[in-house]
């Protein structure tokens, strides 16, 4: 019977991968902290997914139920923004791998590039909003525009949080204070960023084919 005294092998969760490195070797050590950070990030991403799933279902329902849906003319800058965001993800990924193999200088360059591209994306999004406003399309103009603004604002706010994290890491790196021990925050920020990148591509598909 589980948990009973019948077979008392000492069981437990598997030791974290780099348990031996930093004197951790079990609960409370750095290894566990790293694993917990990754778990925490995955859980956060699950929540964000759920929120966008709820918005998507509202989108689908609203689009299907009334005859007042006018397809939104997507500002062209969005395509450029998408490319910029994908490029920033690529840069971060390259940076992350450089750090893993100890090439700190290259890490700094790629990470900073990714951060700058990320900020460029947000500027591009602001410009897209500007274009829509110039065309007289506001949040209440049409359900399609309502959802566009809600989705891009929600994505943008999450991305802004990501940019703050990226900048923090950049600053640490440029001050040469980013040792292997801080690798976890790099992994976790990169994961967050890639997720938001993927989320953005999903939203573009939604707007293009279901808008």
């Amino acid at each position, binding site marked *: *019977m*589980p*948990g*009973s*005294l*019948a077979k*008392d092998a*000492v*069981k*437990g*969760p598997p030791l*974290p991968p780099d348990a031996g490195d930093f*004197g*951790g070797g*079990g*609960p*409370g*050590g*750095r290894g*566990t*902290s*790293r*694993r*917990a*950070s990754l*778990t*925490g*990030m995955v*859980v*956060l991403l*699950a*929540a*964000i997914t*759920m*929120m*966008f*799933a*709820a*918005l998507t*279902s*509202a989108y689908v*329902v*609203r689009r299907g*139920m*009334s005859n*007042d*849906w006018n397809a939104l003319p997507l500002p062209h800058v969005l395509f450029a923004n998408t490319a910029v965001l994908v490029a920033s993800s690529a840069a971060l990924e390259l940076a992350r791998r450089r750090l893993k193999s100890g090439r700190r200088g290259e890490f700094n360059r790629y990470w900073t590039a990714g951060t700058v591209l990320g900020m460029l994306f947000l500027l591009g999004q602001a410009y897209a909003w500007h274009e829509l406003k110039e065309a007289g399309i506001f*949040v*209440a103009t049409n*359900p399609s525009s*309502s959802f566009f603004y*809600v989705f891009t604002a*929600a994505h943008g706010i999450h991305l802004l949080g990501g940019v703050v*994290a990226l900048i923090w890491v950049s600053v640490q790196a440029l001050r040469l204070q980013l040792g292997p021990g*801080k690798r*976890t*925050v790099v992994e*976790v920020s990169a994961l967050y960023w890639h997720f938001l990148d993927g989320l953005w591509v999903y939203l573009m598909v939604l707007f293009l084919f279901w808008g």
Partner: protein
Amino acid sequence: MSSPEVHSAHHAPTSFIGKYVFSKDHKVIGIQYYFLALFSVLLGMTLSLLMRFHMVHPDMKVGWFEKLWPTAAAGGIMTPELYLSLMTMHGTIMVFFVLTTAPQSGFGNYFLPIQIGAEDMAFPTLNMLSFWTTFLALVVMVAAFFVQGGAPLSGWTAYPPLSGVGRISGPGEGMGQTLWIISIAIFCGASLMGAINFIATTLDLRAKGMSLMRMPLTCWTWFVTAILGLFGFAVLLAAGILLLLDRTAGTSFFIPAGLVVSDQILNHKGGSPLLWQHLFWFFGHPEVYIAILPGMGVTSQLLSTFSRKPIFGYRAMIYAILAIGFLGFLVWGHHMFMSGMSPYSAFAFSVLTMTIGVPSAIKTFNWIGTLWGGKIRFTTAMMFALGFVSLFVTGGLSGIFLGQPSLDLYFHDTYFVVGHFHMIMGVAAIFGMFAGTYYWFPKMFGRMMNETIGKIHFYLTFLGVYAIFTPMHFLGIAGNPRRYADFTNFEFMNSLMPVHTFMTHAAYFTAAVQLLFLFNLFWSLKKGAKATDNPWESTTLEWTIPSPPPFDNFGGHHPVVYHGAYEYSVPGAAKDYVMQTDPAAVSH
């Protein structure tokens, strides 16, 4: 997101602010949540007493009503809009700031890390932030009382268009409703932060030997509750944003065309009130399991401890918790049988709803199975756990009526529903919190609560809650609708007034009895008998450390776990309980 703390060089804070205000210690945060919930429940209870008074004396002048609410209670008589706003805030405060905080963020924060053998939660800074964000949400919510128009009147469910068109649909629907939405959105953020912590902690911070199948059932319920909250509150946040936009930005997510409210033709078009209901109840149903699961965990823990018997069917209990969690996401439509949604989906939802009754029944049978053949010690904590079982049976069974759409054709929006959810949430879940309080008070504060006062508190409350909420089922059978400020406009309700009067008096009585609890709680904090490490002779990890525990829980050493959590009356063992950390293996 904060970077994880490394505890090997972890120092306890020394300043007052660091120790008691902006503390990152899960134990302090747990107590902070507990007292936030205590404040909220007193506020929520006061609101309900005002409601019950008004239902029975709708025309009575009360001098101080006018002082508190010069417009809404002009002449000392509570207006219907004031009644409805008290009702809305009662439900909101109870569901969010009591039932979603104390059982999970209160006791869970305090005891999850300890019961799994960890020094703290995975993300202590995030934990601190989650409490203060909850506190901010409460401040914003209470602020709704003080703005022009007062608190909203659309119920804790806030259905649009009533909640979506602004002040023209009723007093309180202006700034009050907006603040309500903002408060809930902030609360969603706080809950998500908490959920991340609970899940990461349970998965990654368990001590050596603490496999998932050796975790106490309390930890299982906190874990599954966190998952429910993670997904549920994410959806509520989305819904709240859309509702806020409908109110302030002229969008029409939930508001259709062709509406005339207060003689104004509205400019909205194309939205669906049902969309709000789907989104809200997709959150709302898991929410009620969030409210009850931790209480179930505590009940399992206490029934085993105080019967000196292992929990009956530990594995089945876990499957039941997982089933309740999973199925909890598939039954939201049973709140919408009469809503105009597809009657075919109504059927599907009802079959799933009946199915979710099965794991709940399993848990009840297993609780009785735990007691069977036991050696029962009737401490106050145990009394509340036993009371939980009785109340859960009563409250759960009325769900069998409501889960059938054919019967809901009569019972929807009657007092039958009010009786059902109060029995389950307003009583059983509360009993879970009382049980947890009496059980864990010695550990948290190093002192014992008074058992005599505790037992009197139990018996009078147990009888009191049955007296308040059982009659509601009969009112429902008689067809008494809910959310009515008074019952004087319908002939058929005249004969029901004595029932309302009885319930009101029972409510006054039961509320007064809680003064005993408050006295016991605060008096024992200072004057209670000193508690030993393990006054209840319980097996889980919190009882291996001092009462109250040191800052880092286990004094720097990492506990190792050898057994499951319910090894009581093991044949051949020296005592009638074997601690989880006791390496002595006894074959059986």
